[in-house]
């Protein structure tokens, strides 16, 4: 029971980490190039950032709701029309802040990791 409980918490923590963090790479991808959901998914998978696709859709709608990204419809030859996402000025400003925050977070977490690894 206690084993199962512990495993559950770890899984949950990992999932929370991924979900909370995912907005940043998604903004980076959309910021680099106007793109649509399956393309974003492909890039996230290549970068090994995403396990399942379901997380992306609520995330995109949230980014849109806060005016960080916008989309335009584009006809597709093979399937349903595509929502082509692009970043807004507001999104760019947020992205800049996230980037700065990530860089400082990255260095401090790395310091902690090194410290931890040395102690073992």
């Amino acid at each position, binding site marked *: 029971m206690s084993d199962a409980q512990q495993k559950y918490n770890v899984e949950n923590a990992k999932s929370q980490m991924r979900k909370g963090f995912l907005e940043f790479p998604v903004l980076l991808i959309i910021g680099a190039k106007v793109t649509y959901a399956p393309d974003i998914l492909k890039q996230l998978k290549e970068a090994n950032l995403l396990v399942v*696709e379901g*997380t992306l*859709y609520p995330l995109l*709608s949230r980014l849109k709701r806060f005016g960080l990204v916008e989309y335009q419809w584009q006809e597709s030859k093979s399937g349903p029309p595509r929502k082509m996402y692009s970043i807004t000025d507001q999104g760019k400003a947020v992205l800049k802040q996230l980037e700065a925050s990530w860089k400082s977070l990255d260095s401090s977490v790395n310091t902690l990791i090194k410290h931890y690894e040395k102690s073992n």
Partner: protein
Amino acid sequence: MKKVINITLGSIVFAIEQDAYDALSSYLEEIKNNLGNNDDIKEVVDDIESAVAEKFIDRKRSEKVAVTTADVEKVILEMGSPSEFGEVSEGESVSEETNSKESATEIKKRLYRDSDNAVVAGIASGLARYFDIDPVIVRLIFVISIFFNGMGIFVYIILWLVVPIAKTTADKFAMRGESVTLKEISDRVRKNIEDLETTKGLWGKIRNVLESLFKVLGAIFKYLFVAGRYIGGFVLIIGGSLAVAGLVSTYSIVLLSEKTFIPADAQTALDIMLSSSLGILAIASSFIMMLIPLLVLVLVGGSLLAGRNMFTATKSITLAVVWIVAIVLATTTSVLQVQKVLPVIDPERFENGLYEIHVNVDDENIEFETVVTPPVEEDVVSAPPSDAPIDLPMSN
């Protein structure tokens, strides 16, 4: 041989096998439940349907080549379990096993109308679900109560107006007090589809007509309720504010004006009171004592207008404490003041010991008595503004 259904996903038409359809629709249904509070729920669901459509196209499915259960399973695997669709902060469980087993917490039972087992509008079976008893018993109670002044019909109609119908699968689970899992939903969806084909007929049509009639009545009822709320709130706020204004101006006229129209005795009493801090305290506390109930009226009106409770715990406690303190202060200080004022104004009666409860008040003296003793003043306020002088025994 399998039965095939035509569906559209992201405005593309697909043929889909019955089993695969059940699995897919329950999957989408559970995603919707997980999205819960998301404002853009419809848009997200549309996005997800388009994504599923693209995946089917990738697998060369179309109107000609039907989608199979294997296709749906593969897509669900790629898209992830419905719990993944929740918002970041919800702390949802992750894997599908934990979702269906460990997190199967007790969910709150709610009262719905049970349209699946309805005879008229599903009130009886809904109530029966809620209290976990046989619907026959509830129906019997309703029928029997008709013979007692028709109470049952009245109650039934009210419930019909206010209790929502269990529309979605999640509502139906909430009605039964069960938590929702993927398998249960898929069982239910299948059962609903079977039911749909059997519950037509004349009675079904009559019920539909009644249902829409009551929907309209319910809307009117709701509208009237809201209108009543606004009117009540408005009246309370205006009335309360006017009363506060009246109270303030009465006090300021009595205390600050030239006092030409105040009887001499009253003037004497007022001067005695104002000359001691105890007297000022009596005046102030009696003012607060009357002000607070009026403020409460205004607050009640505000709550009705705003549609939310304006009485926070701290606000209520503060008001109550201040009010009680004011009452106690006003009573004690005015009793002391009476002892001080009466000997000056009415030495004779003071010696007879008659001042305590009643003071002889005739028409001109009403204002004077108001100032002297708040307990008496309450008598005056509550008494009708009568022309008849208040006669007391022993006074003449």
